[in-house]
């Protein structure tokens, strides 16, 4: 009986993903959809709505890659992963791409054998405290009780920060962001620490956000980006240049509203033409259709549009571009040229 249902399930539902072969693109094409690892839920970055449709900033990257390959932003399966299971899921081939606000670190790159294809959000660990505490700097946090989400680099950063500043603290590790938020609001911890974007997103949903402040110190660098397995450079290139295409699109002023017009015929700007496939053969170099970048941009707009739609200032989360502005506007978002 055991064996049967095992086999039955395998064959009936095509559950067996087969070999995690070196040629991810071929696998993905044969499967007809991209398997993209996301969080089990983080406000603004990835969350399912009442109909089970995933939305968010990280989700946007997944959809763009799917659109670049298939011309169809819905040809993507979202696999929720936890902080603990994400790397195994990627390493074992269960997912093709991990877009789960993952910090790019050297050990993850070299030791865990993953390839970060770029940075889609420059973040850093910050602190949020109630205004009533009367604290204006993280250096005053001596003896504080700190709520912290486990399973991330946050714990190590926090320990380092308090150690180097010779302050004492009391960590309260919490499994999920939602629980940490509840603890913090009830006053069970004085401080809540996580990535600054997460803090802003959390604060935005409070009943009275104005009672809480984010401290100015950012104690770590957290470049968050999508990643793929080591060893399949063709696949890494696709993910990398899709992200770059979104960034370049913003730089060149290509938006989802003028996309159709700009891609209809070659324009005066050769880079736009190369990007949108009306000139040159950039798509073929990646093993994709000439209009791959156009599809990727059509999926959810360029980088700036994705940002504004999911986490930007007009959303409840209300993050400013800050470090994530285009390099032309003083930020760090920069793409190598398309040529």
């Amino acid at each position: 009986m055991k064996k049967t249902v095992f086999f039955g399930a395998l064959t009936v539902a095509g559950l067996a993903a087969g070999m995690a072969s070196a040629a991810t693109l071929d696998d993905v094409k044969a499967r007809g959809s991209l398997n993209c690892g996301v969080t089990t839920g983080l406000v603004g970055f990835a969350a399912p709505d009442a109909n089970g449709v995933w939305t968010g900033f990280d989700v946007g990257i997944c959809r763009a890659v799917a659109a670049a390959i298939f011309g169809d932003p819905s040809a993507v399966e979202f696999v929720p992963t936890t902080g603990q299971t994400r790397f195994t899921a990627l390493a074992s081939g269960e997912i093709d791409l991990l877009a789960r606000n993952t910090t790019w670190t050297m050990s993850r790159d070299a030791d865990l054998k993953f390839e970060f294809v770029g940075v889609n959000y420059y973040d850093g660990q910050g602190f949020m405290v109630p205004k009533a505490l009367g604290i204006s700097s993280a250096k005053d946090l001596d003896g504080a009780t700190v709520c912290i989400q486990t399973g991330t680099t946050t714990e190590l950063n926090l320990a380092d920060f308090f150690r180097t500043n010779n302050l004492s603290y009391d960590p309260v590790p919490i499994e999920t962001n939602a629980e940490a938020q509840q603890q913090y609001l009830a006053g069970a911890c004085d401080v809540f620490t996580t990535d600054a974007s997460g803090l802003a997103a959390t604060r935005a949903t409070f009943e009275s956000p104005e009672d809480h402040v984010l401290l100015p110190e950012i104690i770590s660098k957290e470049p968050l980006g999508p990643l793929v397995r080591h060893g399949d450079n063709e696949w890494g290139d696709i993910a990398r240049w899709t992200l770059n295409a979104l960034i370049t699109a913003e730089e060149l002023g290509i938006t989802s509203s003028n996309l159709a017009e700009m891609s209809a015929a070659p324009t005066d700007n050769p880079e736009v033409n190369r990007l949108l496939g009306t000139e040159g053969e950039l798509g073929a170099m990646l093993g994709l259709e000439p209009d791959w970048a156009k599809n990727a941009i059509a999926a959810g707009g360029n980088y700036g549009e994705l940002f504004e739609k999911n986490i930007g200032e007009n959303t409840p989360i209300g993050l400013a571009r800050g470090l994530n502005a285009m390099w032309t506007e003083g930020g760090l978002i920069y793409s190598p040229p398309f040529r």
Partner: protein
Amino acid sequence: MSTLTDPPSNTFRLSQLIYDTRYRSITIQVVALILLCIAFYWLINNTVQNLANLGKEFNFGFLSSRAGYDINQRPIPYDNSMTHWRAALVGMSNTLLVSFLGCIAATIIGVIFGVLRLSNNWVVSRLAAVYVEGFRNVPLLLWIIAIFALFTEGMDPPNTFRPNAEGIAQNDMIFGVIAITNQGTFMPGLAWSSLAWVMTLVLIASIAGIIFLRRRARDIQAETGRIVPVFLPSLGVFIVPLVLAYFALSAVSQRNEQVFIAVGAERGMDLASFAEASGRINYCGIPNQAGSINGQRYLQAADVNFRRGDYFGDTDARQALAAGNCSLIIADASEATALIAEIEATPLFDERIAVLSDTLPEGRAIEVHYPKMTERGIPRFEDGFQLRNPLIALWLALSLYTGAFIAEIVRAGIMAVSRGQSEAAFALGLRPNRTMRLVILPQALRVIVPPLISQFLNLTKNSSLAIAVGYMDVRATLGGITINQTGRELEGILLMGMFYLALSIAISSVMNFYNNRNTLKER
């Protein structure tokens, strides 16, 4: 004319291996053994290949690298500069702690509610039934989350204990020494002097004495029928030696002279001038050590501006001083010079270091320290002992959940003792409490103990849900953060599994030992 034929056993045919019952069992076992070996070989071979493909190797070296993360509840000394193995040990001791507390509380709760459910009081028995059914039929994880949230939302944060400008606090501490907050319960803590281990010896001796006393009383009763009172003598044997030892040891340790060692101090400086010279002092001591507590009191009495830090022993003290995390520690006067020499020998240490002229006694054998609200900075309690809410919530949830199952076991156990037993006991003239103790309970226990063992095992295993409330057990340290930071899933999970397995086997063998000793010796 010999009619002798060869005995059939001499001719062995291969088919006998299958058809002859004498050999068949051996054949089957050999086949099973071979299959088992093949299966293990297959699994291990796959693992080796997979590890090779991932470029990993199977070794436990990661356990000796620096952990780098902090743990809030530390039954054994730990800080983030210690190793992953040490962190795993902290986690293991936390698991042991909550399991142990949980088993005791669950038994008490279970017995109470098991009896209450049999009560003829309608309201009480209904309420007990609601409790039992409610806890048994909802996942433990939900209960843990709910109870923790109830604690968080239902209690006030520590800052409500700090007096405002008018000197009035929103909440007052119970008896001035206990504060129940949503970070945990703060209560008086004990600090031990360097001689306190003698008290432990005395305690062990007293317990041995009590056991001896009870044995003796039982023997006398068996011999003469005279009932020897045991309660008061036991109490005496328990308390008197302890009290005597306490006073004797205190007399000694009060004479132990202690001195401050200060970084950046001139020889012969006293505390007041050192404080003036260095601004803010980083005073470090061993937690729950009488000498450290007394030193802290001395600093408070001298009204100097200081901050309290922790270290855990001489090696650690040297490191802490050398790294500049501490500027003042306390040490035995006799050991101070040697300690200073050692610290000065530490590479990279180039500060002046000297003994201050103040001397103070080590203190009583056991010192009590009370939680106190800080006056400046973030409102929090200093000193005292903190029973953290994750521990309380997990403890409560585990014991309520398991208690509901134990209540059913107890109820079944009591109902299994036939009515005739108690009637017979009454007929013999036994009073109700003796009837319960001598007749009903021993029989009920025989039914109760075996399923109770499996409930204890369940509770221990369920303590692995601690992660839901941020209680740092072995699953959260070794099986959580350590695996995450080092990427050593295979080794970490293996180690964690073996820990739980060893724990389960230990519990069940202890309880089985008890059970075997107490089972009815049947003919």
